């Protein structure tokens, strides 16, 4: 296929796809492909998780931690290849371990948190490449983990994603007021009797689960985009954390579906199209609210 390494193109037959379809009937035509239905379901499931968790990542300003966990989880994917386990399932414990390491290392060893993140980020990536090079044979899906391949999401992955969504929603519902207290002012929460550090670790584990879930959709490298952009856009519309979560689920779902649709029509890689759509909407929304200088 022209375009080489990109595994995210849908298997469309060449030239016909160059035409631009705009009819609603084409949307129905798209849905006749089973893989497109799976892709839509994956997009919606990912939107729920990154809408909720992305809000915490953005308001607590720990985007860098999200990036660190995402890249470290690549080590788990590599390990999965090496020992012959489904890579995404292997990435779950791996990313949780790296989340806990990031949360604990800076507390116990005397190094700055961002230094710890940088080290774990690079170590995870290096381990992943090492494991894959040791694995027998060729690893054909490697790029789909780096850049995502929402079009090849199997049904089994959808149920894993659904389970992770349920876990995230239940934990956030139970600990909503505690999470609000520790993200706003961790020190005060500690003093007032909230087990702030333990809950912070729980939050980091939820970020790790979300990251694993997003790997299928946009890949390790672009995870940060779906964690931050929908939350950042929704921040411009509300000052309430709960509304921000609902809005950012909505934005994440819209970005993913729009990106998916555009990637289908123009035969573009889905993960990067989703991210670019998100980024463009963010730019427009920031122009809108920077106010006076853009009024005529």
């Amino acid at each position: 296929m022209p375009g080489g390494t990109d595994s995210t193109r849908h298997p469309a037959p060449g030239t016909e796809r160059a035409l631009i379809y705009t009819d609603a009937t084409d949307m129905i035509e798209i849905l006749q492909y089973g893989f497109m239905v799976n892709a839509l379901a994956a997009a919606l499931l990912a939107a729920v998780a990154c809408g909720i968790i992305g809000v915490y990542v953005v308001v607590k300003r720990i985007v860098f931690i999200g990036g660190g966990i995402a890249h470290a989880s690549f080590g788990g994917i590599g390990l999965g290849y090496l020992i012959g386990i489904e890579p995404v399932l292997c990435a779950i414990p791996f990313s949780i371990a790296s989340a806990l390491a990031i949360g604990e290392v800076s507390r116990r060893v005397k190094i700055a948190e961002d230094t710890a993140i940088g080290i774990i980020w690079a170590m995870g990536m290096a381990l992943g490449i090492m494991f894959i090079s040791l694995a027998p044979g060729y690893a054909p899906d490697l790029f789909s983990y780096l850049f995502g391949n929402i079009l090849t999401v199997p049904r089994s992955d959808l149920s894993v994603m659904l389970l992770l969504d349920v876990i995230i929603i239940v934990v956030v519902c139970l600990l909503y007021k505690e999470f609000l207290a520790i993200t706003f002012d961790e020190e005060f929460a500690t003093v007032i009797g909230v087990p702030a550090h333990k809950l912070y670790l729980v939050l980091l584990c939820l970020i790790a689960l979300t990251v694993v879930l997003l790997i299928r959709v946009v890949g390790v490298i672009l995870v940060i985009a779906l964690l931050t952009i929908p939350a950042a856009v929704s921040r411009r519309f509300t000052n309430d954390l709960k509304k921000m979560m609902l809005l950012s689920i909505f934005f994440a779902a819209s970005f993913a579906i729009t990106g998916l649709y555009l990637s289908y029509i123009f035969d573009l890689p889905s993960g990067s199209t989703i991210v670019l759509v998100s980024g463009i909407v963010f730019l427009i929304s920031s122009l809108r609210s920077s106010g006076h200088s853009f009024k005529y």
Partner: protein
Amino acid sequence: MDINNEIIGLRNVWVCCGGVPVLEDVSLSVHQHDFLGIIGPNGGGKTTLLKVVLGLVKPDRGEVVVLGGEPVEQRKRIGYVPQHSLFDPDFPISVMDVVLTGRSGKSVFGRYTSHDRELAQGALAMVEMLPFKDRQIGRLSGGERQRVFIARALAAEPEVLLLDEPAAGVDMHIQTEFYELLERLKKEMAIVMISHDITAVSIYVDKIACLNRRLFYHNSKELTSWDIEATYQCPVELIAHGIPHRVLREH
């Protein structure tokens, strides 16, 4: 001194940071209905002292007793008002929700009860910030924000209030209102306030201590000029604003 109504007791506390002492041999006793001001230069260990009382910093030597127990166990009974400059003003949270976080340690899991909400409303009313309860925290002035943080501390029904530089960066006329609020509160609880503003503090507090690694305290409002000079390491001129309080004993 009656040991029974002692709320905070520090005995020969030392805190070192990387081999350099931050607090040296500090002893302090705060009792019910005390309004103690702790003054001293920046970097003199004032915030560290508060963190020792709150159990956030463990002393290298010495004993700390808070409300008859360990700081870590008793600190939920302390109302803590940190320096407001440390907050992210852009955080998406309303004034009411900030105050409610003062209740977040009372029960794990689940929602705030109607009792929590009543206490938060009451605390906001006490600091005269109830009309602002739906406002985002960043859309308040420095003085208003400070009152919200006091309300948050009050919502936890504390027995002692610790304030860290509460008047820093707040306009003069707002400061006056603010100290009057503390005057009202001290009828119900002990208050310890940290400040680097000697004159403002000396007008309202009942007792003053000076801290610059070592603590100079005579369980009264009287400080000798020797104390102040030892604290600030230079002669300090005190202006009393014509208030009928004597800050300095004459020499």
